[in-house]
């Protein structure tokens, strides 16, 4: 291992609790890879971690422009972290556009490591700086600690004898930066070295060149005078012993579906169509053939869900994944799944809308569509994940509800959770709840006729799959007679079936946990009620508010339809309810509607997640008003 504390010169190593870093550059600069490598190293080192990539929807937007800036933000810490950090402490800016696009989110007094070649006349012009202006020299960055580093020149020098083409050499510049950051945060190089050697197995010289560039960055930190005053930092690892893995929200969804299929003893089928930011779920599951997973990349969103309905009819654990525009296309088929009363998991990774909207940016604006976006009376359960790791538990729960209650379930994630990552302590199979499909057994001659829509005491019908002798029956999208399932246009029957389908969903409240208070007093001045990916920001803000002595609590909903049975009681225990949402106010409508109370809304529709500071400010303002 690199002795990360030892240096050639006397440089102070300062202990810090937590640091937020942004790697930003042109989308061709390899910032996602650099960020991911840094995150892996930090994770294996044992610190707490939360990451968030931020990139344009174009694969290669014009180089050097603001539109082409790609960023990877992460916060690592000695104590639990729930967000990538409201603002960052350190920014790596590979060019002037990256600096310009992100400066507003850098803490005052924060560190800027600027790749000076990205600040030449051409780049400054592309970034839209006025003629002659250069932020590295004009004093506009006086409130920050700026380290101009000729990254490209130093990389070229380090690799001049590598035998690589100049284009290939230039592409290694991100590794130089990575090495420099490893030095700055006293982190080991070995993890990345292993990864590079594995990645370039067939191009050994390429692996070695990247490693050389990384080491050059590391030793540059060591040898230059530049960082003498700042010194180095150490964020000591605090994670509990155990086996961990780092997962993104999308990976966690895919693992959960596979785990649920194993636990339920069913085959997993995913019918899907690629759509940002949900595609990695399909990609991850396509690689899970070892677990018997069947993925089907359909011709469109409709075929994605309908093929899943076919598979569910055949007895598979069936799922489809999508994002807003795709969910819109799937709504008719969702109605079919509701009336067929078969299990189906729909994972909707929300993004900014309407229409194509902001494909790579998160929003929580599909809640209404999830709850109400079908013709006719077509209720179904809606649940939402709160963190990348929670995507596992929520998706697993969606599968449990779908199979045990014979219904389609919408599981909401969003673009933030989908691509963010955090360490996950590897779960034991024994800790996962059982999932018990209720298959209808074969019918023998002389048995009473099979009634497809006969229900148990939870109003759930049984799952009669083809191949089962004696259960041959016909069902479909037409309204059916109670119990027999035969087509029926009888008015009283339609009213009854509508009621039974709704009641079945309401009864799910009996099988879900009561709502818990995440943090804060059970009674008090203010309850911050959140759902989905705003968990981290709310959690951090409420922690800080409590530290300030404010009477604030935080509850975070996983189950949005049906609500946990004790929610009314909880809402009654606080003088005011605050509901932060990344939309124009959707949950607040539902809370008002269900509980006839007047909560305070706090909304943000900028395609970026909440940060803890905005929520903390809102909390303190609101409490001042209350007094």
């Amino acid at each position, binding site marked *: 291992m690199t002795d990360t504390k030892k240096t050639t010169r006397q440089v102070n190593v300062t202990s810090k609790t937590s640091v937020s870093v942004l790697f930003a550059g042109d989308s061709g600069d390899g910032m996602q890879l650099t960020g991911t490598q840094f995150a892996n190293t930090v994770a294996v080192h044992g610190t707490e971690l939360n990451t968030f990539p931020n990139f344009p929807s174009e694969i290669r937007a014009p180089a050097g422009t603001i539109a082409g800036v790609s960023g990877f933000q992460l916060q690592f810490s000695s104590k639990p972290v729930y967000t990538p950090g409201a603002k960052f402490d350190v920014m790596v800016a590979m060019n002037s556009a990256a600096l310009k696009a992100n400066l507003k989110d850098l803490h005052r007094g924060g560190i800027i490591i600027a790749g000076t070649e990205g600040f030449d006349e051409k780049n400054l012009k592309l970034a839209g700086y006025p003629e002659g202006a250069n932020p590295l020299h004009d004093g506009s960055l006086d409130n920050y600690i700026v380290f101009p580093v000729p990254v490209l020149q130093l990389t070229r020098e380090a690799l001049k004898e590598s035998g690589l083409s100049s284009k290939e050499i230039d592409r290694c510049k991100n590794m130089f930066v990575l090495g420099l950051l490893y030095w700055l945060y006293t982190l080991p190089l070995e993890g990345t070295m292993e990864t590079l050697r594995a990645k370039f197995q067939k191009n050994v010289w390429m692996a070695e060149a990247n490693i050389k560039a990384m080491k050059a960055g590391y030793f540059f930190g060591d040898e230059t005078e530049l960082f003498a005053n700042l010194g180095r930092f150490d964020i000591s690892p605090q994670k509990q012993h155990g086996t961990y893995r780092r997962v993104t929200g999308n990976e966690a969804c895919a693992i959960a579906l596979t785990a649920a299929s194993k636990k339920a003893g069913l085959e997993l089928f995913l019918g899907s169509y690629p759509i940002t930011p949900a595609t990695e779920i399909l990609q991850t599951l396509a690689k899970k053939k070892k677990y018997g997973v069947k993925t089907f990349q359909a011709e469109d969103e409709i075929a994605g869900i309908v093929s899943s309905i*076919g598979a569910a009819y055949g007895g*598979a654990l069936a799922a489809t994944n999508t994002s807003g525009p795709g969910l819109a296309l799937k709504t008719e088929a969702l109605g079919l799944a509701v009336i067929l009363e078969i299990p189906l998991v729909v994972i909707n990774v929300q993004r900014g809308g309407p229409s194509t909207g902001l494909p790579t940016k998160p929003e929580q604006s599909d809640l209404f569509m999830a709850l109400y976006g079908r013709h006719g009376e077509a209720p179904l359960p809606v649940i939402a994940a709160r963190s990348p790791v929670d995507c596992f538990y929520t998706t697993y729960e969606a599968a449990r509800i779908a199979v045990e209650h014979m219904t389609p379930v919408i599981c909401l994630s969003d673009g933030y959770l989908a691509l963010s990552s955090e360490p996950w302590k590897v779960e034991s199979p024994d800790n996962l709840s059982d999932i018990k499909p209720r298959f209808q057994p074969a019918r023998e001659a002389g048995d009473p006729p099979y009634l497809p829509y006969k229900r148990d005491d939870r109003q759930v019908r049984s799952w009669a799959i083809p*191949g089962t002798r004696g259960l041959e029956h016909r069902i*479909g999208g037409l309204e059916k007679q109670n119990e027999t399932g035969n087509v029926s246009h009888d008015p009283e029957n339609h009213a009854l079936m509508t009621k039974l389908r709704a009641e079945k969903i309401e009864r799910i409240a009996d099988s879900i946990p009561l709502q818990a208070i995440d943090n804060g007093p059970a009674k008090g001045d203010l309850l911050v009620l959140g759902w989905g990916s705003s968990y981290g920001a709310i959690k951090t803000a409420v922690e800080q508010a409590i530290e300030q002595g404010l009477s604030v609590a935080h509850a975070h909903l996983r189950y949005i339809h049906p609500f946990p049975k004790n929610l009314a009681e909880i809402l009654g225990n606080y003088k005011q309810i605050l509901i932060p949402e990344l939309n124009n106010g959707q949950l607040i409508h539902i809370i008002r509607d269900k509980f006839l109370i007047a909560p305070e809304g706090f909304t943000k529709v900028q395609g970026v997640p909440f940060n803890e500071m905005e929520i903390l400010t809102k909390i303190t303002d609101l409490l001042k008003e209350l007094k």
Partner: protein
Amino acid sequence: MTDIDTTIKTLPVLTAKDFASDQEPKWCPGCGDHSVLQQLKQVLPELGVAPENIVFVSGIGCSSRLPYYLATYGVHGIHGRALPMATGLKIARPDLSVWVGTGDGDALSIGGNHFIHTLRRNPDLNVVLFNNEIYGLTKGQYSPTSKIGLRTVTSPSGVIDHPFNTAALTIGSGGSFFARAFDRDGKFLRTLLKRAAEHRGTSLVEIYQNCPIFNNAAFEAFATLDDRANNTINVEQDKPLVFGKNKNRGIMLDGFTPVVVDLDKDEFSTSDLWIHNEADINKASILARFADDDALPRPFGVFYAQERITYEDALALQIKDAQKNGSGTLEQLLKGENSYEIK
């Protein structure tokens, strides 16, 4: 008596009656759908597949009511989406015999995208496409197979959309089996349905099906036995293309152009004629285009049948390969491949 004899003895002999559900068909009197249902009920017992292993999937339209009238498993889905539903079912359950009942509107208009993609993927489905060249259930609007000039409630001045040629579309989409049948020729329809069932891959059977209410004239050129003899041709493997009441007319290929010849004249004999070959996609493509030329008889029968790997088999092979060193356990899944220890 051997065990096998016992098994055979105890296997129930099924008849058409065993495949009739308890629901009374609600199609109009005289509708061609009754005939298709009748032929299916006769063919199904001959397939040697137990009723519980057969599923009929459908979309929306008159034809899509088919599953309700058969005593197999049945699922009536949404408009245009029968094919992806059947595909998902077949992938999940390759052991089942999966049939699709669909129409010209369901399969070729609202479900057009699914139609082409299903054919290229080639899951083992038997698709029975009832083509009546009209929308029946919504009461008489023109469909994607309606002829130019047809006056309907939505084309009062006559249809101006060029119609789809189902055969050409099937072959062009990479379909592995195409046959055309006629509702009034029950015996031939049964042969084709059986062939479709035996073909591994997506078997597309287009049935010219008369709608007596909204499009009674659609197939009048083939209505009487005489008309059928003179205006249609039933193609058979390795047989020359001969037609006419007196079997005195034939089809010859002049380059890529089919030509009708008179066999009563000395100039040509049957040995000069086009010999039908179901495996020849180029000839099948020419056959598919007969419908666009009024001078040529309308072909019926298996135009094209060439087996290639089905989608579900290809997927099963990939899964088998991925599991060659054992299938993954839940523990392995949860641990993942990049886990690390914090000590």
